[in-house]
């Protein structure tokens, strides 16, 4: 709460980004308190990690200070107050936090808790609900991420690759030498980050985790690498156009599981028919869709970041060139 107010009051955008990182981390802790570890995972890596990075990238393009505004938004304040008031009014009749007789715990949840082990065969109930009972929602969410990805792509089309000049390389070298400690430490860390991502990906059936979280962590690892070693080095390994295709592949992989179960004569996304034993079928189904989720999430995150970074470099270069021209003109 304090941080939210601070975010609104601060004019320095860099500080705002830092604060919102803290905000994300705090809300992740909050999610842990209410026992939503999976959400906390995502919030910690997206809210505190990647979105902060993206905002930083945006700031380097635009500038650090918010333009001061003069008008007083009374109407907006009024609307916000009414909305807040309504929300508080609405909570008055809510069941108490954690009350066992709340409707939420009485209707559909008992079956998820008691029978998901027999029906789906996955110890992590959250995965069972997201991956099987409500798999269609999850498919929709992957599509949302995919949409967001191409939305960003359509706004920031990649500028043409240009040849590196020697002065660029020199500055890059300089920058990298300056960050020697950070580079070495993160070089040691990155393999573990990626490994951890894979663990979260494939262990989602048992512990908290799954495709969303794993994808984000994987992307974060690579983004870290990109920030320290430059965009060009990273893109040698991760070709942007292949990454864009991978985003599509992930979504298709997920949906095609549904199609396969349809071909096998069951309803869309019914995993029971994927193998002879229904439980095995569920396992296979969840494994594949989580993989699809992970691929799409990681590649969308990466391609958004790459685009931002390429854009930033392009703008910096054009500024530099402009500066050089000005200098030569004055000479």
């Amino acid at each position: 709460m304090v941080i939210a107010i601070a975010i609104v009051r601060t004019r320095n955008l860099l500080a705002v980004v830092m604060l919102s990182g803290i905000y994300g981390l705090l809300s992740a802790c909050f999610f842990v308190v209410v026992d939503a570890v999976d959400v906390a995972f995502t919030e910690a890596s997206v809210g505190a990690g990647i979105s902060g990075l993206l905002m930083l990238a945006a700031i380097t393009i635009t500038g650090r200070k918010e333009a001061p505004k003069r008008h007083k938004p009374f109407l907006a304040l009024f609307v916000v107050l009414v909305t807040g008031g309504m929300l508080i009014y609405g909570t008055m009749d809510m069941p108490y936090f954690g009350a066992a007789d709340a409707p939420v715990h009485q209707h559909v949840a008992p079956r998820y808790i008691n029978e998901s082990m027999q029906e789906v065969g996955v110890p992590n109930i959250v995965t069972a609900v997201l991956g099987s009972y409500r798999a269609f929602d999850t498919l929709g969410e992957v599509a949302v991420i995919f949409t967001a990805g191409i939305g960003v792509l359509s706004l920031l089309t990649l500028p043409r690759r240009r040849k590196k000049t020697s002065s660029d390389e020199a500055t890059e070298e300089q920058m990298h030498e300056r960050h020697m400690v950070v580079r070495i430490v993160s070089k040691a860390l990155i393999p573990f980050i990626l490994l951890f991502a894979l663990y979260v990906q494939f262990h989602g059936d048992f512990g908290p985790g799954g495709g969303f979280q794993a994808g984000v962590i994987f992307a974060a690892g690579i983004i870290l690498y990109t920030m320290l070693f430059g965009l060009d080095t990273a893109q040698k390994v991760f070709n942007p156009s292949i990454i864009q295709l991978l985003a599509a592949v992930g979504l298709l992989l997920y949906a095609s599981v549904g199609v396969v179960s349809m071909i096998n004569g069951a309803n869309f996304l019914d995993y029971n028919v994927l193998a002879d034993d229904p439980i095995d079928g569920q396992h296979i189904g969840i494994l594949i869709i989580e993989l699809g989720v992970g691929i799409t999430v990681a590649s969308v995150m990466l391609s958004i970041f790459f685009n931002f970074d390429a854009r930033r470099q392009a703008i910096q270069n054009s500024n530099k060139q402009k500066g050089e021209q000005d200098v030569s003109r004055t000479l």
Partner: protein
Amino acid sequence: MLAHLPILQVVVPLMAAPLCWFLNRSKLVWIFALLVCAATCTNSTLLLIEVMKSGTITYELGGWEAPWGIELRIDKLNAFLLLIISTIATVVMFAANTSIQKELSEDRHTLFYSLYLLSLTGMYGIVATGDAFNVFVFLEISSLSAYALIALGNDRRALWAAFQYLIMGTIGATFILIGIGMLYQMTGTLNMSDLAIRLVDVGHTRTVFVAFAFLIVGLCLKLALFPLHLWLPNAYAYAPSIVTAFLAATSTKVAVYLLIRFTFTVFGISFSFTTLPLQSILMVLGLVGVFVASVTAIYQQNVKHILAYSSIAQVGYMIIGYSINTSTGVMATLLHLFNHALMKSALFLALGAIMYRIGSVQLSQFQGLGRQMPLTMSAIVIGGLSLIGVPLSVGFISKWYLLIASVEAGMWSVAVLILLGSLLAIVYIWRIVEMAYFKPPLPGRETVKEAPWTFLAPIWALVIANIYFGIDTRLSVQVAQAASQSLFGINP
């Protein structure tokens, strides 16, 4: 295969959108997207036939039965909506290739098609599903892709318009999510028909009341009801022409559908129209919306702006019909959904054709177009007449049922106001006609030619549909009547 119709409607465009990436040749992607749209159109026709014949179809996703899993639930109401959306999407897609060649740079074509298909997926998903949270997920797909589609516009103002829409749309979606979350908290279920049963017990609580208020406000933002319409005019005006034609004919309709679905099916008529003074609030807002938007339309210089404001006015009419709260009133709303989709897509496509030829849709540039692009301009005239509500056009049919509904309910003043609102439409349509037919062509514009046939074919298909359904109302009226009667629980 027939049993899988409901899911195919949603999944075919969903899978087609990423597939577009692998084709990556503008023309090829266009043909592919067109085929996909046509396939969903056939699919929705089959669904409607099936539903009219044998009643509601449910489809359990993942084989889990309803309150535990997600179900798709197709009844007469949403089968009708699906047909409207898929038909418009197909017809508009036909002209897409020609139009975006002029308006978008080559490297964005694939993006455009896959966003278009995603937006379509989102709408199908919202309409087809029987699960409240699923609605939200697909709402996000359709809105995110709509923002991006609008931002593709060549005009730099398109970015700002898309940003405005993004903010307003996100607030709307958040409100809807808060509403759904509170409903879940009070009932423990997300399935719509299950919600309807379980809400009866907790209907008196403040939480449900607040949830209802949040849902309604969120939806009104999405459907651009006055005074929450501010995002719409610029979003429509600066988007690429094809996007405008597509969104204007479909996206607000989906929000109107959701409003009907939530108030009638989930909350039930007695709750929806007694707890809040909803009826009078929406009626007043609808009427004010008609007048304010129509008067604003008269003073616009950009023809896309004129039609965008007219769209807000038409939403006003739909809300009036809805808030009369009789079977005939809702039927008039549904008819107007159908008819307005036909008119607006024809009109905006015709504007797209003009944009293609002269690169502008400012009213002042329309001088003399009546003689230079006779087929396109006459399409605009017929579409405009339909918008006014002249007999023998679809506009007349829906206005007629709206009048009957208000007179039946004893609301004479409403009926008079509806007629007055239509008079305002005459003024703004006349401005276009006057400019196009009674002024000589601008200097330097003497050689403007008629639009290419890829434009004329879909435009005239829609115009003919405008007249056809104005004369032969069997299909539209029958389906709308059946749908609205089923909402009120009347068995025909």
